[in-house]
């Protein structure tokens, strides 16, 4: 057994990537390596929650994970390709342009094998609704740092309801200014300030571990 998960947990970029290459060369299965990477990322998430790690650490861990995934990519044989755990659509709604939290969330979702589509910031309600039709996500994540964007989020959720698209999806709202009242106002399924909790909710909803 290697200590890949620990190297990632400790944010030792070069050593972690070296370990990935070593294990690939040793003929180990991509899935096993990826699982260790995920275990390391999960620890990083926990340490972030505990306040041991901060934003820069989280961003660094995401970069390490991305690089590791890029190393593994060519070795994934199509039959082995893991099916995505679920599809997530993310957006910061019109009136708000903050996306630091949303970007962290996107990375965490990818770490947990979700297919992520990120609409970016200042997103018009109709664009979100259209994307729900096109991308057919399991989850819609709305990120907010400014209360005024709740209005455009409300327009979007009302429209989803109106077009009969609401039942097929779970809506998550997150960000520093969100409260349980916002969840009720938007008729959302989940509200959190914590990206890790949001991902855990979705993993759970998909019956994952």
């Amino acid at each position, binding site marked *: 057994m290697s200590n890949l998960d620990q190297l990632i947990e400790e944010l030792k970029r070069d050593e972690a990537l070296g370990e990935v290459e070593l294990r690939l060369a040793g003929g180990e299965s991509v899935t096993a390596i990826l699982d260790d990477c995920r275990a390391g990322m999960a620890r990083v998430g926990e340490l972030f929650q505990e*306040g041991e790690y901060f934003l820069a650490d989280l961003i660094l861990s995401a970069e390490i994970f991305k690089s590791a995934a890029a190393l593994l990519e060519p070795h994934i044989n199509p039959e082995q390709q893991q099916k995505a755990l679920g599809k997530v659509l993310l957006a910061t709604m019109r009136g708000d342009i903050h996306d630091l939290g949303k970007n962290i969330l996107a990375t965490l979702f990818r770490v947990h094998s979700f297919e992520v589509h990120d609409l970016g910031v200042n997103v018009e309600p109709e664009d979100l609704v259209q994307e729900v039709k096109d991308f057919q996500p399991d989850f819609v994540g709305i990120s907010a740092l400014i209360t005024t964007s709740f209005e455009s989020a409300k327009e979007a959720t009302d429209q989803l309801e109106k077009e009969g698209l609401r039942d097929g999806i779970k809506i998550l709202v997150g960000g520093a200014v969100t409260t349980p009242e916002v969840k009720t106002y938007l008729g959302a399924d989940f509200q959190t300030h914590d990206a890790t909790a949001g991902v855990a909710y979705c993993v759970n909803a998909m019956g994952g571990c």
Partner: protein
Amino acid sequence: MSLRIGIEPQSRWLTLAAGESLRDALFRAGIEFPCGGKSLCGGCQVQLLAGEIEPDTAEKEYFSAEDIASGWRLACRLKPQNGMRLRIEQWQHRAAAPILSDTQSIEPGCEETYRIAIDLGTTTVVAQLLNMATGEVLSVVSRLNPQAAYGADLMSRIDYARNDEGFAQLVNTVRDCAGAMISELIHSSGIDSALVDRAILVGNTAMHHLFSGIDVAPLASVPFSTIHGGLRRLESAELGWKGVDELAVWVLPCLGGFVGGDVLAGLLATQLHRERETSLLVDLGTNGEIVLGNRQQLICASTAAGPAFEGGGILMGMQAAAGAIDAVELKDGELCCHVIGQQSARGICGSGLVDAVACGLELGWIDPSGRITREDKRIPLTSDVYLSQQDIRQLQLAKAAIAAGIELLCAQMAVSKEAVINVFLAGAFGNYVDVSSAMRIGLLEFTQHQIKPVGNTALQGARLALGLASDVYDEQLREEAADDTDKVQLPELTAITEKVVHFSLGESQAFQSLFIEKTKFPESSATPEYQPEV
């Protein structure tokens, strides 16, 4: 069922709504808790003058039996009772007045008039009466901005103003406050009210709008900009002021986004816009404002630092009031805390926080990522006061917002930080913070000789503007501008406002990665090397 409680020494009665907490009710009345109000620090001690209230366990632990008997309680534990009376004068702030309201004279003029300069701050309002003939400040008054009852910070007030009723409340509250202060200045100085012909108000963009009665909705969402930030002129009559003769009230124009007339006043005070060399003006507050430039070029931005510099969002954070640790230094490897007032420490204010973290870094108790390395996960300051890991995180966010903003403006103007001649620190926090600690934590990535605390430049600039406004304004302009007062201009100010470019940090991707980078602390106390942008 509503109930009434009395507050001393103000001798006021407050009516509380059913279920309303003491904290909320006091806040509504413009009285802020001096601390976090979470039963952690004992910062909110009050004396019960009337009313029978049994102390709870936390209070018994905190106070001696004698104290309890003489009515001492913790306001955060008190359930309001009808008819109870509280004495809260021990919450008085430290003497912030010298910084907020220095009384330097301006150039004597020849007119035999009196004018009033008002710094309309989010937290504090300061007004001064000047004799224009001598340029002297005759009288000063200051008050808490009564809008605080509708929200401590700007964003919550802007949010409150989103419906017509809330908007009207905020407009009237601030106008009444300014009117009352003007009236007090005139009457206390005993001059003839008819000789006062003008008042000049400076404030941030939201204050400019609310005082002028302009909708603040554009400030509530992206791109946080307004087209109505121009110079305003109102008449005392339309403001509904009583006890004040006819008086023209000017509100200085905004520079863009959240960067308001207070920062424009800062330029007048520092003359940054007239120098050949490049200087920086930084107002460190919940909303940090930054202007970089010289006589050729000026660029400004605002950056959301959050309340950490004012002790907000910090576990044992409090305002710079009696009992706050306001300075920390290392003596022979030991932490030495200075506490405001002759008493033991019960919390920490912004300047103390910056010092404490700087010391923590020096001792190796905090690593450059901001992690507390000590076993107990605390930075112990006194037997009762410590910093938690989350406190360090809050400070990291605040300092990163400022440092990244400065860095980006420098990059935008292609000026190296070494080439900045002066770094003017405006505002109360900027004057109390220890410069070397601010450098140590990477809040100000400059050298000691560049950094110059300059006091309340908003008020200084408002005073200077009193002299400016006199000969330019005429009735014809006012007529022409009747439909759009933005057209009313003052050449001296127009020269600045036309030159200033507002840079929206939030919309910049570069800002976000810089921000993350700047959450880290510098590795060592050596002056950080400036790395030019690639």
